[in-house]
């Protein structure tokens, strides 16, 4: 593949073989067999703030889309570096060969610098090391100026990191002065200067510039790596259409994948939730079934055994009645006896009229040995000439049935 660097219509640098200088009009003589060719051109640089979607609109408002073609690369979020070229020039170059690649020359210069200075593309570990070194060393500037010297013509390329600030072709004049103009317009402060022209480098060093001669093949810095930047080549209409089709396909596949991923995640989530719900429902059904079975068992047990419980809760007064009929002294007579599961045992005795002297203490001592009334509270009631004694025995709490009755004071 033959390589050319088109600096101006009057100056084309032949970057293959022995090299040399020619003109645009003379190029067909170099490509008589319609072979493949790689051209590097000096584009107009533009820094554009836009999104990928709005980039075409923004560029169309600045440059006529019919007369200009452009190639863009992202610098940072929503900032693009655009290489603008005349469509007429591209068409003319494309007509010269069979498969023609046209790339922006500043991109080749930047690639050549990155091969010289790998730290520019350093890894995280290397960046950390550089950061530590920066504590003691002065940091190296990422500003570079490359000056290609072709006789009386100079191609000046100014770069700051990945961004290409300017590219100028100067014919004649004072090269150092032109370079300083470039530095001033690009607002650069003492950048490193590289050139393949040894005399020019020595002149710069004598004037105090930090200039060096890079070890690269060819007279121009970027000529050896032109084929490395073909990813930034200007595309034909067909290639643009293919590129768009490829991007659209990628977007469609991405959308399909995202949709499928969403469906998979939602399906997985639904499956998990459904499993949990079914588990809870089955537990509910099992509990309901167990309760039904247990209720039937309890109902059966109640029918089988509840009468026993009812009989055990039954109260009786026959023994208490017999006890009082024998234990009461002759001065009193039993009026009533009542037993309630809640209220306990209550007996009422009445003093016989005209009976011998009798007191509450006499009644208490008479009942002191009674198994039922020894601990009874005795209340004395007077109604006219009648004296009644109300004996109350509180119901014993469950479990205290065996405890002996204690006499009350």
């Amino acid at each position, binding site marked *: 593949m033959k390589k050319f660097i088109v600096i101006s219509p009057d100056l084309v640098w032949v970057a293959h073989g022995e090299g040399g200088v020619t003109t645009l009009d003379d190029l067909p003589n170099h490509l008589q067999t319609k072979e493949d060719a790689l051209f590097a051109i000096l584009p107009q640089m533009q820094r554009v703030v836009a999104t990928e979607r709005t980039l075409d609109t923004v560029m169309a408002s600045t440059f006529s889309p019919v007369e200009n073609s452009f190639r863009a690369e992202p610098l940072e979020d929503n900032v693009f570096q655009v290489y603008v070229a005349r469509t007429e020039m591209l068409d003319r170059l494309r007509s010269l060969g069979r498969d023609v690649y046209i790339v922006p020359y500043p991109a080749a210069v930047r690639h050549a610098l990155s091969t010289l200075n790998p730290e520019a593309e350093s890894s995280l570990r290397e960046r950390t090391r550089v950061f530590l070194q920066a504590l003691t060393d002065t940091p190296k500037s990422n500003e570079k100026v490359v000056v290609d010297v072709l006789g009386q013509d100079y191609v000046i390329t100014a770069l700051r990191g990945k961004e290409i600030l300017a590219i100028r072709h100067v014919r004649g004049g004072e090269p150092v002065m032109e370079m300083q103009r470039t530095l001033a317009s690009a607002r650069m402060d003492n950048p490193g200067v590289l050139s393949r022209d040894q005399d020019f480098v020595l002149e710069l060093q004598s004037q105090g510039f930090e200039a060096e001669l890079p070890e690269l093949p060819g007279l121009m810095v970027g000529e050896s790596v032109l084929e490395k930047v073909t990813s930034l080549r200007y595309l034909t209409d067909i290639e643009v259409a293919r590129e768009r089709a490829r991007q*659209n*396909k990628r977007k*469609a*596949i991405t*959308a*399909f994948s995202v*949709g499928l991923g*969403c*469906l998979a*995640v*939602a*399906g997985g*989530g*639904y499956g998990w*939730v*459904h499993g*949990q*719900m079914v588990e*809870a*429902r089955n*537990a*509910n059904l099992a*509990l*309901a079934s*167990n*309760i039904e079975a*247990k*209720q039937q*068992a*309890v*109902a*059966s*047990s*109640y*029918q*089988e*055994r*509840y*009468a*026993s*419980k*009812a*009989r055990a*809760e*039954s*109260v*009786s*007064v*026959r023994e208490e*009645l*017999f006890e009082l009929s024998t234990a009461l002294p002759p001065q009193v*007579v*039993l*009026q*009533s*006896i*009542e*037993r*309630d*599961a809640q209220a306990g045992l209550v007996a009422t005795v009445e003093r016989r009229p005209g009976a011998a002297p009798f007191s509450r203490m006499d009644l208490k001592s008479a009942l002191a040995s009674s198994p039922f009334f020894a601990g009874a509270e005795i209340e004395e009631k007077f109604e006219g000439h009648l004296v009644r004694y109300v004996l109350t025995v509180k119901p014993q709490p469950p479990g205290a049935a065996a405890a002996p009755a204690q006499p009350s004071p």
Partner: protein
Amino acid sequence: MRSLYVFAVLFVLGSVGLLVLADEEWSQKGQFEGNNVILQQQLDELTVEAAGLERLEPFPLKFKQDTLSDLFTRAVEAGEVLGAGVRLEARGFGNMGEMRFVEFKSGVQKCEVTVQASMEKEGAAAILTMLEEELGELPASVRKTKVRVMDSVVSVSMDVDLFGR
């Protein structure tokens, strides 16, 4: 290409639908779990109740009409044979004088009655003993007994809960 977008949209819509269903089933799961806690408590209570019943001696309940018949036979007729006038009355509000069994526990029905007896003072204790023993043979629980002693007559009133199936 367009079909891929159509599929993507369908997938997203399907995802939304699945998420809606998942949300619905999640709330159902919460309801089931809340219900399960209540059911588990009921089951535990029933288990404790069943264990308590297992400790009791077997004494099968009879059908409610048979129980009433037994009560008449044992209490009223036996009391009259011994010389006591025995009377049965329905107890509780809303019974309108009718002896009715009402649901008491699962499988158990209860009828609240009052047994009243009047007897001569001589031998009253024996008749009372007989009455209590006869009631003890029945699936019944005497809740309250009141004995009033008058000059020559003894009046007995017993609140009895009668159980049948």
